[in-house]
């Protein structure tokens, strides 16, 4: 029986091991873990390691008979074999060190991985969390995609017209703010995508971050038949995001035929069923 994380490779009797880091979450690995990867690739594989588009790590060319042993060494270092076949993929997260410094999602992602990492599903299921609307973790082409949003408050009477929120490389990216020597900041809420970058930059608190919320998208997909996800819920509170993800996953499990991806379920029964 093929275990999670062991996939067919090229060459007879050779397999590929796919693992993800669990210390503390997928997108992050420690230097000790890197050394273990190097060691395992040298000892059991062909001295190379491949990183996948979803932040998993693969060690190709492992002798089938040595797989268990190799995986044991990897697990000792805090890796988990998985992310293949009909399983939830580990949740994909954007960078903890993003210089835009938007909403952190790493903790939520850890929690989801605890619960759903490599759980059996009707078909492959991808979950992605992005800290802002720029969606670096590809939340809009995943089965379930979460995007953090920040509501800002703009108080033009406090503005010193320094122009940072507009001109700084880390300021507004979508022209939702204007400011000039004569006129204090003006905010076009239609253009605003709620990234909150400006509130990190304004030196005098003329723009401030208010509450955070999370938009939830479902039914996107990559691969052979790529499709854009659809917006299911807007501005869900932090406390309720994980509940919502739970609910969507349970609904999917209940409604899907074997082998059916979430987008296909949504096409068949309508997105309202997931509301």
């Amino acid at each position: 029986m093929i275990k999670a994380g062991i996939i067919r490779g090229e060459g007879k009797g050779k397999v590929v091991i796919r693992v993800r880091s669990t210390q503390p979450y997928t997108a992050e690995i420690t230097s000790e873990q890197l050394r273990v990867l190097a060691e395992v690739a040298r000892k059991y594989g062909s001295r190379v390691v491949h990183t996948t588009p979803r932040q998993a790590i693969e060690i190709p060319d492992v002798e089938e008979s040595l797989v268990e042993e190799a995986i044991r060494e990897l697990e000792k270092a805090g890796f988990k074999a998985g992310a293949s076949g009909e399983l939830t993929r580990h949740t994909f997260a954007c960078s903890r060190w993003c210089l835009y410094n938007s909403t952190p999602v790493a903790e939520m992602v850890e929690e989801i991985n605890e619960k759903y990492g490599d759980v059996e599903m009707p078909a492959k299921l991808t979950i992605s969390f992005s800290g802002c609307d720029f969606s670096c973790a590809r939340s809009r082409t995943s089965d379930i995609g979460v995007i953090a949003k920040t509501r800002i408050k703009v108080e033009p009477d406090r503005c010193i017209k320094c122009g940072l929120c507009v001109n700084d490389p880390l300021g507004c990216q979508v022209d939702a703010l204007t400011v000039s020597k004569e006129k204090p900041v003006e905010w076009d809420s239609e253009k605003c995508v709620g990234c909150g970058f400006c509130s990190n930059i304004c030196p005098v608190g003329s723009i401030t971050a208010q509450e955070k919320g999370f938009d939830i998208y479902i039914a996107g997909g990559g691969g052979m038949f790529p499709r854009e996800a659809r917006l299911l819920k807007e501005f869900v509170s932090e406390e309720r995001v994980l509940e919502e993800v739970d609910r969507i996953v349970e609904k999917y499990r209940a409604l899907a035929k074997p082998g059916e991806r979430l987008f296909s379920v949504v096409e068949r029964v309508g997105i309202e069923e997931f509301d």
Partner: protein
Amino acid sequence: MAEEGFKLELPKVGIIKGVKPKDIEVVGEKIVNIRARAKPYSNIYTAEQLEKVAEVAEKYGSGKVHLSPRHNLEIPEVRNSMLMPALQELFAAGLQAGGSGTSVRNIFTCADYCPNKVRGVRELGAIVSELYGDLPLPNKFTISFAACPSGCSRPWNVDIGIIGIAELALEEEKCVDGCTACLEACPVEGAISIEGGLKIDSERCVRCARCARACTEGAIKVKDTGFKVVVGGKEGRTVLFGEEYLSFAKDYEVIEAIDKVIRQYKKLAQKRDRKKYERLGEVIQRIGGLEAFMSS
């Protein structure tokens, strides 16, 4: 603050090829993130390179490494004063800072040791990486190679996607009764039918050759392999899917196509907002489709 950091460090790091201000992200005044990647692909690291990244992260950073969605190994929290030795050590191990800003980003290939592979992409990808890697362009520009239509490297959501496909040859008389191997292997419903004679619906078939691999009788064979080239996709704040530009291209035609698309993009891209130029897909949309874009 960020600006100041760039100005201070850049002249010194400029001696290392390919380092642009954004490859080294200035986070605080003293702390930078280095986006390291292997050449020619950012997704294959040797054991020695992993150890080097580990060493640099420990010596100059916090011992942590971030796996980026486009396969960089990012070393965060490096002290600014230690940037130069860190970069030099990485460079000596074949790792460069790169893969950010408005240029051709890391060339991306799927795992072509995968059994689904129709046509290998590593060599062609390396040539493209050599030719176009880090080329400055109006906005960021992503190129992905997938060795089969499953598209694990997400070729439909990048500026140029190159997908390995097969041309099949059918010999119906070799097909035996009672066999359904090809049907079971086919990932697309209704692409292949055997009732009343072996047939492939060319509208539905994605040309993945799984049927040919499953057929032991030689009734379905791979006649030739090549690439489909799709252009103008993106992900992020908005999602666009590439439009088919070439339906069956040979290696040199793929390179020609990339060259042409990049030239048109340079010529036609306009400012989208104060900070950025349009992405390729946005230019194509504004102009009214790929054909119009290519002939503008």
